[in-house]
């Protein structure tokens, strides 16, 4: 870090209010060239809002932005691009109809007059270069981005951000869907950029990562600046304490608190689907937490979809010993299943609807009588889960689309919990959720398990699986290649299985 240099960006007393919320309340921040500056804070602390202001997506109500010593106004993203500010958005900003190569080159056409021909060969060359830098050389450049997995899309978005001459690179939870390996690639690239004098603002909820990557760390809480500290002097516990403003007991389940019962709640027998899934069999006992690990493309998505009636399958599924045929999600819900989907904006949220409507959407029978909605009941259920999950909102009728990313995720979790399921399937359940909330969610999962709910966590975050699960299944190319009990679950052997070495395979 280089205190002797002039700051690249100085933010002074930035305020930004939304109806009902003061998202930023006088935040100041200084970023130097050649530093990685992490910004952390709970969900809704105002991190994305601050970055959106730098990007020109939002205008501050008051405060000053000083860029290389000059006060600037950034009325449009176009201006931030001119200044050399590049952003990887938390909610990806890609055109789904355009190809990988086209998306990566999208910000290079900004300055063109319009009538010159598009050089798609250049696009491809550049995309290829950027993607191989990120270790994604095998990605088909001609695929429309809308058909990629979330992880692939995230990589494309990062590639797009670093494909221009960038002075300030802002990454808002860039790796929430990435694997460890992909994340390592990303970090290597970031370190190179730092060495080249780029200022990097890095937002993440993964505190270990933050500690190892960044030079300085700024903590925001409730829209206010709390502290900026050098990374050397920080610890995870200290960061959490500053973020949350109190102690968080523990992230992981206490040892030996297994609640596994003998009754089998959910059983899948020889499930196959399309060309990808082959004869998958597993069971989840009441009170058991089972994890499914695997690299992107292993077929975890398809497995989740089959288990919730979103995708046709062959084979059998039993819930509490009863064979069921899941043709549609409503069947699944009726039989006591609940799903927390991974794709928050696409499959999860109904963005124009209110928070309370989103919470009760899967559980309408509980909040209605004879087909008539009971508004008080809707409010009560909404209220209950807003409290229980500590969802930060201005009011129950706030539109879902205006919530911070993490809070949206909690609302979706609330929707699943509100159906009081016997089997809860969570797909990337803590993607983009802050540590405090994560701890709360884990605690809730434990409590549910203790109450006898069978829980299936499908996740690409191995620490999460290892910390939470009684058992972990590992997938590779549509089949299970390993099964780990809680005691012998560790990152390395699981990763080995996930990459196809079925050394640890025990049973099917």
């Amino acid at each position, binding site marked *: 870090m280089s205190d002797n240099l002039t700051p690249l960006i100085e933010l002074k007393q930035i305020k930004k209010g939304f109806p009902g919320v003061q998202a930023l309340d006088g935040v100041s921040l200084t970023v130097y060239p050649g530093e990685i500056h992490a910004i952390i804070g709970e969900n809704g602390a105002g991190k994305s809002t601050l970055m959106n202001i730098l990007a020109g997506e939002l205008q501050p109500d008051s405060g000053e932005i000083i860029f290389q010593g000059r006060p600037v106004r950034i009325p449009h993203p176009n201006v931030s691009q001119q200044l050399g500010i590049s952003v990887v958005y938390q909610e990806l900003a890609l055109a789904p109809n355009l190809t990988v190569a086209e998306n990566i080159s999208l910000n290079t056409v900004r300055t063109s007059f319009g009538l010159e021909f598009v050089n798609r060969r250049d696009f491809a060359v550049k995309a290829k270069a950027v993607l191989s830098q990120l270790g994604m050389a095998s990605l088909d450049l001609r695929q429309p981005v809308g058909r990629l997995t979330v992880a692939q899309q995230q990589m494309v978005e990062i590639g797009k951000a670093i494909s221009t001459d960038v002075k300030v690179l802002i990454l808002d939870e860039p790796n929430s869907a990435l694997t460890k390996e992909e994340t390592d690639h990303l970090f290597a690239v970031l370190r190179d950029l730092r060495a080249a004098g780029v200022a990097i603002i890095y937002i993440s909820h993964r505190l270990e990562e933050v500690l190892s990557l960044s030079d300085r760390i700024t903590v925001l809480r409730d829209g206010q600046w709390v502290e900026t500290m050098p990374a050397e002097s920080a610890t995870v516990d200290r960061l959490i304490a500053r973020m949350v403003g109190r102690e968080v007991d523990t992230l992981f389940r206490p040892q030996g608190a297994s609640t596994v019962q003998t009754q089998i709640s959910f059983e899948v027998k020889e499930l196959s689907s399309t060309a990808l899934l082959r004869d998958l069999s597993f069971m989840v006992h009441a009170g058991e937490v089972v994890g499914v690990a695997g690299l992107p493309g292993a077929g975890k998505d398809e497995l989740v979809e089959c288990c919730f009636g979103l995708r046709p399958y062959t084979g059998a599924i039993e819930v509490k010993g009863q064979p069921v045929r899941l043709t549609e999600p*409503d069947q699944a819900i009726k039989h006591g299943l609940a799903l927390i989907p991974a794709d928050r904006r696409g499959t999860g949220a109904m963005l124009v609807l209110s928070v309370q409507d989103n919470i009760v959407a899967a559980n309408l029978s509980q909040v209605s009588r004879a087909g008539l909605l009971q508004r008080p009941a809707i409010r009560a259920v909404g209220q209950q889960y807003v409290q229980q999950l500590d969802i930060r909102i201005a009011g129950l009728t706030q539109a879902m689309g205006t919530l911070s990313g993490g809070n949206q995720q909690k609302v979706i979790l609330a929707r699943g919990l509100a159906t009081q399921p016997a089997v809860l399937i969570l797909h990337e359940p803590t993607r983009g959720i802050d540590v405090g909330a994560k701890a709360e969610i884990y605690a809730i999962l434990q409590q549910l398990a203790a109450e006898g709910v069978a829980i299936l966590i499908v996740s690409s975050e191995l620490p999460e699986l290892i910390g939470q699960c009684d058992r972990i299944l590992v997938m590779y190319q549509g089949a299970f290649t390993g099964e780990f009990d809680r005691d012998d679950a560790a990152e390395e052997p699981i990763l080995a299985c996930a990459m196809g070495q079925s050394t640890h395979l025990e049973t099917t």
Partner: protein
Amino acid sequence: MVKDVQMTPTTSPISEKIKNLFLARETGVLVALIVMAIFLSLATPAFLSVRNLLNVGRQVSLLGIMSVGMTYVLISREVDLSVGSIYALVGLITGMLIVMGWGLVPALLIGLLIGAMVGFINGWLSTYGSLPSFITTLGMMSVARGAALLITNGEPVTVNEIQGADPQTLSQFYYLGQGRVFDLIPMQLLFFVIVAILGWILLSKTVFGFKIYAVGGSDKAARVSGIKVYNIKIWAFVIMGFLSGLAGILSIAFLPSGQAGRTGVGLELDVIAATIVGGASLAGGEGTILGTILGVLIIGVLRNGLILMGISAFWQETMIGAVIILAVGVDKWTRSRRGL
């Protein structure tokens, strides 16, 4: 571990907040309507007479009935361009049945059933058939219009005794379209009020209504929430078809003569316009019955006022377009002021 509720500091009594927010949805349109009404009552004294207001009420009734249906369709993120043709088809068939001597109830039932069925086909093609509803209903617009022409052989259908209708049935039928309750309130208006109330209850009070919003908000999210997205959308089209048919029947009961090439031509754009002016959006998930009623009234009051003021027909045409843009503009403006 679980904190107390952390409602944001700026809000205090939640129930009030909710009320305000709820109101706000329609405020913009309401403001536009009130401004217009004040202007008109100053500009022309005839505007505020009871009789004139009832006239306006009657004149907007059929548009209003169909716009209630369109509210459902638009909220569910679909669109229906065939409503004008369904209106013609059902009205004419019902009229023909009455002329052929059918009883009132069977004739009405057959008519409404046909409307609902055409709606069902629209819905089925737009969901299970995985075609965009713009195309299915544009196609249906021609198909239903053609069917009406074929059935009537292109000849005008006149529902009166001379053509063979039973006098008693006929007088009942006429009453539906032309009658006035207490010699004052036009039956058409009464139908509109009933449809609006039922439509409002169904949309904002029932589980079905909730599902319509959910489906329009995000069909994937709705599906994962266990909602049968396709079926809900199909129901929206069925309601639309049914209400278009009802409006068509009331139309021919009012003006006992219709013609397949002409009845209801171009109605679809009026209906969609009124609904959008009322706050619904082609992007789905948004809209209310109250808003739609206000939208319908804006268009009705505007037409009425321009005529009362003696504005020439060509200027009327120009001004109607301008006011539609203006009304939605006012709505957007008040919404953004309220941070919606």
